[in-house]
C-alpha cells in the first residue's frame, strides 16, 4: 500500500472514528440522544455486517471457474454461521472459517 494512500485512508477514517467517539460525550453531557437517532444508529451494525458478508460471497463471475469453486465460500460461510450462533466467539469463527475453507478447497 503506497504511503500517500495509506495516510489518506488512515487519517480520514480516524477523523470519523474520533468524531463518533468524542462528539456525543461532549454534546450529551447530562442529555440523551433522541430515540429515532438511537434507532437509526442501532441498525448500522446489522446492515453493514450483512453487506460485508454479501460483498464477499456474491460475485457475478463466481461460476466461471465451475460450480464447486463457486460453492466453497458459501458452504464454508454456512459452517461459520453455525459456529457463530453456537459460540458467538470471534476466535472460533475465524478458526472454523479457515479450516472449512481449506478443507473444502482441497476436495
Amino acid at each position, binding site marked *: 500500500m503506497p504511503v500517500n494512500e495509506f495516510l*489518506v485512508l488512515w487519517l480520514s477514517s480516524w477523523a470519523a472514528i474520533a468524531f*463518533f467517539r468524542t462528539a456525543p460525550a461532549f454534546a450529551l453531557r447530562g442529555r440523551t440522544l433522541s430515540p429515532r437517532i438511537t434507532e437509526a444508529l442501532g*441498525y448500522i451494525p446489522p*446492515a*453493514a455486517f450483512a453487506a460485508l458478508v454479501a460483498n464477499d460471497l456474491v460475485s457475478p463471475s463466481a461460476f466461471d471457474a465451475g460450480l464447486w469453486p463457486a460453492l466453497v465460500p458459501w458452504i464454508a460461510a454456512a459452517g461459520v454461521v453455525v459456529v457463530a450462533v453456537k459460540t458467538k466467539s470471534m476466535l472460533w*469463527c*475465524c478458526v472454523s472459517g479457515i479450516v472449512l475453507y481449506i478443507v473444502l478447497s482441497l476436495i
Partner: protein
Amino acid sequence: MVLKIVRTVWPVMLTYVAIGAPCGMIMGQTGMEPWMVFALSSTFVTGSGQFMICNLWLAGVPTPSIIASVAAISSRFALYSASIAPHLTGASKRQTLAVAATLTEEAYGISLAKLVEGEDWGPRESFVLNVILIATWGVSCTMGAIVGAVVDVPTAIAAFVCTSLFICLLFSQRLSRGNVVAAVSGAVFVAVCKFLGLANIAVPASVVAGIAIALACDAVFDGRGARDAR
C-alpha cells in the same frame, strides 16, 4: 492501580492478542508496513473497521468508498459515547476527551459497569483501562504483521478470515424485526449493486439502504400498531 486494572481486564487482553495477531497478518497482506499497522491499530482500535479496510482494499474498492464504509460502521461508537456521557458529568473536559477518544467496545462495557457500580472507579481508571487495551491491541496487530511478512498466507484464505469475522459480528446482533430487515435489505442491495456493475459503492450504499428500509418498516408497523390500539 495499573495492576488492579490488569487483574480485571486480562481475559480481554488475551482475546485481543488472539484476534489482533491474525488481523495484523491480514493488514500486512494489503502491503502495510509494520509502522502503518501499529499507527492504524493503536488509533482505530476497532477490529471490524480494520478487517473492513483490508477486505475492501484487497477487493479493489476505491479509497473514498472504504472511508465511507469504515465511518458508517464506526458510528456505533457514538452510541457508546452517548451512553457513557451521563457518568462523566463530574469529569473535567480533558478527562472526558481522554476517556471518550480511547473508548473501545470491551473497555466501554467494563467501564460502564464499574462507573454504574461506583466502586472506587472514575475517569482516570477508565482511561488507564483504555490505554492498556489499546497497547495490547496495537502490539498484537504489529506482531501479527511482522510474523505475516515471513509466513506466506494465501490472499483468499486471509480474506475469508474477514468474512468469518463479519459473520460472527452479524450473528452477535440482537435478533429483532428491525435488525433482520436491515441485514437482509443490506445483503440483497449488495448483490443487486454487484450484478449491476456498481461494486465500488455496493457496501456504503447498501448500509444506507438497509437502515432506510428498516426505519420505513418500523414506521409502517408502528403506524399499524397505533391504529390497532385505537
